Every structure is written in C-alpha cells, then in structure tokens.
C-alpha cells in the first residue's frame, strides 16, 4: 500500500456540475434559446400554470418543454395540446436533474428553432435546488395550500430562485395563508426574489408573470 500517495483534490462536489452548467448556458446564449428551470412541490399546479403560460406566449415565442418529474404529474399530452414541443426526460430514479442530464435533454428536444424551453424539474423543494441545471433563470411555484412558512423550511430553493409564483390565490379565503408573511420570509432569504401572486385557474396575475418572462427571453436574445 505504501506506493499509494495522497493527492489533494480540494474541490466542491458541485464544482464539476457548475462547470457543465456554465457550458450549457453558453451554448443556449449562442442559440438564442432561453431555458427556465421550474421547480415546485408535487401538486402545486405546474401543469395548469405551464399551460396558461404557453397559451399566453405561444404567438410571440416558440416554446418547448422538458418534463422530468418522476411522479409525472404533468400530463405530457396536456402540454402537447398547447402546441409546444414536449419531451420526457429520464432521471433514472434520481431526485433532481443536473447539468449533464439537462444538456442531454436539450439535445433530444432540439433547440435551434425554440426561443423558450421550460425544464420541469423533479417535484420537490430540496434536491433540485442544489444542482445548477444550466438554466438562465430559476423559477419556483409555491401554492397557497402548502402554507406561508415554506421559505423557513426550505430556505435554499428560495435563495437560488429568481422568481417565485404564488399559485392558487383564488383559494386564499379558505386557508390561513399570510401573503405578507410569505413575501417577508422569502425576501429574508433572497432580497432580489421577484414574486408574482397568480391563479393559473382563474388567470389572475398571469399577465404580469408572462410579461416578465417574455421580457427575460427578449433580453437574453438581444
């Protein structure tokens, strides 16, 4: 055994993934394709929010969707019905997507003719937050029934997100959900977090969110 030597590596486990993520972003920039990483708990209303978003933006943007939820709560057909190109990613039972898997998905989807790709990450609030997928922006959906204390319980995801959609505001009267508190808690973890209260069901607030996203895509392409 004495021929074995100690080699210092001194590298974060995530460093390798971070480098791959940078490469993905660079490629996206060259292609003029915007990648949005969408994270949330299962049951937060991702399908409806995605559908509504695509319906609002599809006349202006060419949109693709990569579906990676292991619990598969997004009906791939529901997305395809909107006219967006959709593929299913296989995470191999993993609880998150990393940059390499995202890159593979982008290749399979084909991004040359797309302005916006939405990556629907695996439905949980812990693991996806740890791995940079190479997305241009990270978004998260939190729905009213989940409660306003989520930023305290899952701080990391609120730190890494650029935008927070608070969905299902149409049911606010029936829940002890404190909008002021959730905004304060979320901003405590991330002062730059953009917050849009929406109801994907009634359409309330969707305009402001879609305008923001549209603007982001345009400035990425500029």
């Amino acid at each position: 055994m004495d021929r074995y030597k100690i080699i210092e590596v001194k590298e974060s486990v995530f460093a390798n993934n971070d480098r791959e993520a940078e490469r993905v972003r660079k490629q996206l920039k060259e292609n003029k394709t915007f990648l949005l990483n969408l994270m949330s708990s299962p049951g937060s209303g991702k399908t409806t929010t995605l559908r509504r978003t695509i319906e609002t933006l599809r006349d202006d943007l060419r949109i693709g969707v990569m579906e990676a939820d292991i619990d598969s709560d997004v009906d791939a057909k529901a997305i395809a019905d909107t006219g967006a190109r959709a593929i299913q990613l296989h995470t191999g039972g993993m609880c998150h997507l990393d940059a390499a898997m995202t890159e593979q998905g982008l290749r399979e989807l084909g991004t040359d003719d797309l302005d916006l790709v939405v990556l629907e990450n695996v439905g949980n609030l812990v693991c996806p937050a740890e791995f940079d997928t190479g997305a241009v922006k990270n978004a998260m959906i939190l729905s009213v029934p989940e409660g306003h204390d989520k930023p305290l319980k899952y701080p990391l995801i609120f730190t890494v997100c650029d935008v927070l959609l608070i969905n299902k505001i149409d049911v606010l009267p029936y829940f002890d959900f404190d909008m002021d508190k959730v905004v304060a808690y979320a901003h405590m973890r991330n002062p730059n977090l953009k917050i849009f209260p929406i109801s994907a069901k009634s359409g309330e607030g969707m305009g402001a969110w879609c305008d923001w996203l549209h603007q982001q895509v345009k400035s990425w392409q500029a």
Partner: protein
Amino acid sequence: MHELGIVFHVIKTIQQVGQEQGLQNVASVTLELGEVSGAVPHELESCWDWAVKRTELMPAAKLRIETIPAVTHCGQCGQDYSTVPQGRSCPYCGSEETWLLRGDEINIKEIEAI
C-alpha cells in the same frame, strides 16, 4: 436518492483527476461534509459501495467522511454561533437576520491513489 447524485458527481470528478494524473487505482476518497449539507453519511456510504464497484478506477475505494461543524453569523449583533442546536434565530439577540458561514459544503478533500 439525493446521495446517489452526489456520489455520481464525486466519482466523475475523481475520474477526471485520474485521467489528468494518469492514476491506476484509487484506494480511498476523503469527503468534507458540512453538518447541514443535507447529505446523510450513512446514505452516502451505501450509495458509495454500490456505485464504485461499477468503476474501473476505484472499484474498492473506501469513503472517509470528515464532518465540518455548521456556524451561523448574526448580522444584527455580529456574533457567531453553532447552527445545529440554535437554528436560524440568534441565541444572543433573537434576530433572524442570520446567515450560514460554513457547514453546507460537500468537498472532495483528498484521495489516496496509485
């Protein structure tokens, strides 16, 4: 499941190091694991044994884990305190304006190789 993803990334990094340095075999890998990194040592070990067996470079590599204690800093009173027993609220002044100084890292410290 989360631990498996971490193990895959560790293996990938070490395979790159192995290639760069022309290594034949890796006998052990030392990880520095923050107390609040979210990865469970026991889970890492069981994923580790499963995953390294499938590599050429490190089929019998041992995993050693060194724990890094978590420390939080209070922006209000300037004190540092131990994160795990105290949580987010500063034990000195009660402020919630606190942030983690260290303890969330997962680093590959060193490897033993030939």
